[in-house]
């Protein structure tokens, strides 16, 4: 509260100082501007400088005053803060004491209430235990009856299943016999088809083999011819005397002559 008041006081002080300075500056300005036409230029300048000096002194005085006010305000503020701090510490101490007393009383009250509640709960549990035991017995009886009924049902189901199984086995045997007969038929047909197919494949394979044999024979024949030719060439080239070569060449030329090539 005091801090807020001091802050406002400082602000008002600063505002008043600035306002006074502004008024003084305004009056000086009006005076100088009204004398402008009457005075000579040096007089005007002198007046201007004087006015500026006065204004500056006023402003500095205002600033000084404002600083003083601010310093006073700060001092007052510090005093107020320290006072409030002390007050707060005392209040906090008192509050703690009160809280401790209240806590003790509440704890005692809660203990009492909880004891009462525990006793009541124990009573409820005791009564519930009896109820639960009764319900448990009922359930056990019911389960025993149900299981007996289930056993009877299971026995009946087993008998039925056995009958069904026998019927199914019979059906399976019959179906198996039918399938066997059909398979035998299919097997015979398959064998016939396979034999036909194999026969056709055999004929194709025979044809291929014949072709391969023929081509291979041609290849071998060609190879033999080349071999014979190569051997003959080598033997003739190396073993034949030059005189024989000469006579062969002459015979070749004679043949050419007989054919009128030469």
């Amino acid at each position, binding site marked *: 509260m005091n801090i807020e008041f001091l802050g406002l006081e400082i602000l008002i002080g600063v505002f008043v100082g600035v306002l006074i300075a502004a008024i003084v500056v305004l009056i000086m300005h009006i005076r100088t501007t009204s004398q402008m036409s009457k005075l000579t230029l040096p007089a005007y300048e002198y007046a201007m400088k004087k006015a500026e000096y006065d204004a500056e002194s006023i402003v500095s005085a205002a600033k000084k005053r404002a600083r003083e006010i601010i310093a006073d305000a700060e001092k007052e503020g510090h005093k107020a803060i320290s006072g409030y701090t002390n007050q707060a510490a005392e209040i906090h101490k008192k509050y703690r004491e009160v809280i401790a007393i209240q806590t003790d009383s509440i704890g005692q009250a809660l203990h009492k209430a909880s004891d009462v509640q525990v006793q009541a709960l124990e009573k409820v549990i005791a009564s519930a235990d009896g109820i639960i035991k009764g319900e448990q017995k009922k359930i056990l009886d019911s389960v025993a009856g149900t299981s007996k009924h289930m056993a009877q049902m299971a026995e009946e189901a087993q008998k039925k299943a056995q009958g069904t199984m026998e019927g199914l086995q019979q059906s399976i045997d019959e179906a198996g016999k039918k399938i066997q007969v059909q398979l035998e038929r299919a097997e015979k047909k398959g064998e016939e088809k396979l034999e036909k197919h194999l026969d056709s494949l055999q004929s194709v394979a025979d044809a291929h083999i014949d072709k391969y044999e023929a081509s291979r024979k041609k290849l071998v*024949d060609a190879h*033999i*011819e080349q071999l*014979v*030719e190569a051997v*003959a*060439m080598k033997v*003739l*080239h190396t073993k*034949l005397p*030059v*005189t024989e*070569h*000469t006579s*062969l*060449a*002459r*015979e*070749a*030329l*004679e*043949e*050419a*002559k007989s054919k009128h*090539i*030469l």
Partner: protein
Amino acid sequence: MIHDVQGVLDLIQKNTYTVGDMSRRVGILRECLETVLFSDETGPVTDRCVAHLQSLQASSDVDAVIAWGAEVYESFSQSTVSEKIIALQKTIESLPVLTLYVPVPFADAELAVVGEWCREHCDPHIVLDMHIEPEVVGGCGFVWHDVYHEFSLKSRMHEQRGVVTELLSAYEK
């Protein structure tokens, strides 16, 4: 004495049958004549030529040139040797050529057999251009008037292909 180039060429061709031999031997003749005719030595040209040729390294070409004889040497003089040799070379270049492909190199005697046969049956001035071609195997191939003719054993064997396999097939049966 022979005065024309053709007469000299006829003598040369008596023991020379191939283009290569003719070129080499005419070169030897030219060198011999230029040495003999332009030397300071005196005496018969033939004797000096034979002596010069005998001083060279012995070869079939030198023997062939010596065998040409005095008629060839004495047909040249100091003033005509150059002109006649050039004319002789030009004449040789114009001779009909039979290009022969044979499987082995022929010796002079064999070349003479073939050359004589060619001059007797084809052209009296023919010269042979010999090539060794082992693929020919036997016989020969030849080029005459810019056309190649194949009379080799190789071509005959190609023509007879199948005979061997026929024989083998018959033997198999």
